[in-house]
């Protein structure tokens, strides 16, 4: 169907694709896996005409084609669904789908015809969406279907999907895979970019593995397994499971009573939540993103305005509800935020400047009466963090922006661990982090727990949260809807609770 031949692409001094050759056979589901920065998206964006390759050629149905814009790609039957949906939220499904390819003549938009066409398409592929619904009212899973329909409406024969399951619940993932299989039956070809090995094994026919801009393997899915794929991706043996001894649970560290966070629009984002975290345990919170996890962690970190908040938070018996972010850090609450670019880092600042964020006012890092930054002390501490947490490149004068996601995350984790916290709030610790670093971060979190720290872990990766947690709460629409033992509960049970089903 599509073939990339010796595609090379440079961004400045970075070789993003180095003689990449991928053959995708028609009527198959083809997975492209690799760590962040391996060049997966770049290769596919070249195929879709987003970037122009420096050299190499693209063949479609055996013919060499010049694809210089997405328009060319669409004309050749190539569609792409991006990780972040490109939908106009205030428009209806039908309007979104026809946008840029409107039926009717130049003056009048024939939405009736559009609706009928869409209805037909969605029946053909069993993509149940109401064409007249407004997009902002749809769930993420439904929005994704709209994106698929958008591509199908433009007669795409090849669909490129960039990390399509990142935003879905386990149940939605199952439905989504069913859709993909149906599309394959109808003769469509699907390319799925992902880093989740379990999904690769579940859905694909063939796998291409990329590392450092090169293709390091193309194998039949039935002939491979997760361990082999991980080894190809990382270039060494990887421990996929989290090894941890049983928790040595101590006394209550954090107790939360009747915590409610009301949004400025009057909606309750957290509704009367109560729970406890003990010393020496990792309490996981699972849930579909956007169900109050962000509000919970920010409320605990002191980043939610007091006027929006009610309830009580205590650390080791001390009421911390009224303390601001700085005061909470001072009494031992560390926070690894979910969005490291927005919250966690000053991207234009150097690593050493980033390493003191939050503790920059501590006397140990200052001189001359606690006013002037003590360069020597700061550099020493930064070097220590960089060494302990294997931040690469180990040059504290580099801006944080220059680091990969995994190394940025390691810097943040190092900074927060250095506080020797009593309570660690950690959200999405391994999002956008490559497999090698994930293993490292998981080990560090378990080690902190074993030192007696209470850890509150929020993650959208169900596998991560079940593997790391000693106890698991499930959150749905701002309420805690389940309390399970992750060693006993199945993924299906947890997934069901995440959707708000009250079977439990």
């Amino acid at each position: 169907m599509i073939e990339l031949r010796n595609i090379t692409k440079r961004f400045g001094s970075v070789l993003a694709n180095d003689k990449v050759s991928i053959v995708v056979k028609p009527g198959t589901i083809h997975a492209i896996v690799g760590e962040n920065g391996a060049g997966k998206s770049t290769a596919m964006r070249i195929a879709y005409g987003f970037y122009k390759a420096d050299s190499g050629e693209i063949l479609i149905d055996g013919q060499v084609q010049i694809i210089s814009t997405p328009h060319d790609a669409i004309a050749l039957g190539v569609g792409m669904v991006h990780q972040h949906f490109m939908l106009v939220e205030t428009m209806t499904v039908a309007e979104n789908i026809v946008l840029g390819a409107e039926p009717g003549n130049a003056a009048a938009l024939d939405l009736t015809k559009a609706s009928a066409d869409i209805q037909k398409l969605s029946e053909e592929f069993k993509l149940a969406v109401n064409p007249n619904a407004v997009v902002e009212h749809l769930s993420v899973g439904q929005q994704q279907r709209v994106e698929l329909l958008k591509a199908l409406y433009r007669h795409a024969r090849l669909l490129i999907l960039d990390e399509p399951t990142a935003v879905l619940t386990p149940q939605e993932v199952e439905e989504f895979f069913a859709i993909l299989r149906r599309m394959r039956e109808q003769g469509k070809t699907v390319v799925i970019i992902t880093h989740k090995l379990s999904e690769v094994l579940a859905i694909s026919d063939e796998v291409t593995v990329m590392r450092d801009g090169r293709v390091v393997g193309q194998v039949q899915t039935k002939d491979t397994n997760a361990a082999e794929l991980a080894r190809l991706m990382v270039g060494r043996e990887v421990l996929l499971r989290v090894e941890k001894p049983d928790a040595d649970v101590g006394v209550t560290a954090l107790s939360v009573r009747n915590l409610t966070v009301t949004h400025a629009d009057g909606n309750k984002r957290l509704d009367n939540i109560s729970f406890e975290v003990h010393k020496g345990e990792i309490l996981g919170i699972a849930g579909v993103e956007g169900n109050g996890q962000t509000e919970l962690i920010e409320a605990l970190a002191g980043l939610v305005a007091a006027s929006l908040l009610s309830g009580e938070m205590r650390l080791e018996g001390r009421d911390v509800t009224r303390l601001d972010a700085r005061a909470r850090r001072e009494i031992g609450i560390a926070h690894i935020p979910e969005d490291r670019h927005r919250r966690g880092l000053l991207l234009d600042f150097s690593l050493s400047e980033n390493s003191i964020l939050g503790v920059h006012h501590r006397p140990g890092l200052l001189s001359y009466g606690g006013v002037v930054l003590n360069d020597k002390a700061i550099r020493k501490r930064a070097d220590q963090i960089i060494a302990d947490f294997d931040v690469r490149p180990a040059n504290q004068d580099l801006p944080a922006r220059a680091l990969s996601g995994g190394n940025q995350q390691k810097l943040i984790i190092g900074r927060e661990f250095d506080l020797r916290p009593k309570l660690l709030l950690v959200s999405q610790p391994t999002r956008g982090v490559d497999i090698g670093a994930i293993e490292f971060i998981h080990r560090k979190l378990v080690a902190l727990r074993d030192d007696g720290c209470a850890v509150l872990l929020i993650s959208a990766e169900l596998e991560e949260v079940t593997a790391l947690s000693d106890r698991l709460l499930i959150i749905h629409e701002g309420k805690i809807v389940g309390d399970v033992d992750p060693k006993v509960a199945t993924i299906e049970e947890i997934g069901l609770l995440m959707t708000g089903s009250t079977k439990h």
Partner: protein
Amino acid sequence: MIFLRQLLFPLIAVIAAFIVGGILILLIGDNPIEAYRLLLGSALSWPDGIGYTLFYATPLIFTGLAVLVAFRCGLLNIGAEGQLYVGAFATAWVGISLAGMSAWFLVPLCFLAAIVAGGAWGAIPGILKARFGSHEVINTIMLNFIAVALCSYFTQYHYKNPGPIMETTAIGSGAHVARLGKFIPGLPERIPVNLAFLIALLCCLLVYLFLWRTKWGYELRATGSNPSAAEYGGISIRKQIIIAMTISGSLAGMVGINEVLGYRYRYYDGFSDNYGFTGIAVALLGRNHPVGVIVAALLFAVLQRGGIHVDGFSEYVTKDIVQVLQGTIILFVAAEAFFSGSFSKFGLLKRAKV
């Protein structure tokens, strides 16, 4: 390496502006090389050229620093113009009211007046933003009009020097700041460059130390770089906004030291040649760094001083060519945003999920 890259774009902008200006002069029918020789020659002649160039550079260093400090906190202070008027009038007011006082007390008091008044005027939009979230650009622009009108009012109805000129009565001689000619042989004292120039240089050093060497500067810059992360780090964004705008206003207000205490010895209505607005260009060209601000202020001062001579001696080219050059420089510097935009896109690509 990083330092050189920082220098590259302003340099290209200036060279490109001179080329564009040259083409323009050619089109008008004059010789660009001759015109530029005249411009630079007159601005860098000793003692008049250099003396006046340094004098013109002084207010631009202050306003450039003012814009810089606000910008480092993520704020755009368009109100340096108003802040410098308020500062100048306040220093004149103290100089007039306490005219009999000895210089030992009067000069510091006059300095303080300029700093406090400018700072207070700058703090207003800061507080409005911190408290109500109203945008500082709108408020600083509006406050410019109010400042100019207020100063005119007090000049006209309370401190007017009799005669046709809109100016106040003279300040006491104890408030005078010495001209550099007093200390430098060969520089006549009629040239108004005064100690305020050295104070401006000192302020550059202080601003540098404050922003990059103290915890307060760290908090201010962190707020400007990423307010969400600053908040996460326990920094009060509201407090930083007010602090930055106050310091910014104080620096702008210090223009009054140069103008009132060192040059006219009175408040002169409408004295500012858009120093506050040129300060934005100075900060931009100077890459929002104190050293850059000095260089950029000197460049703009050269153009201003040289322009007067081009006007007088060249047949077709008028002083307006200076405005063309300034405008083109700003245009090219602003165009860098486009270049760095594509660079940052590259940065994003590197981090994007591949």
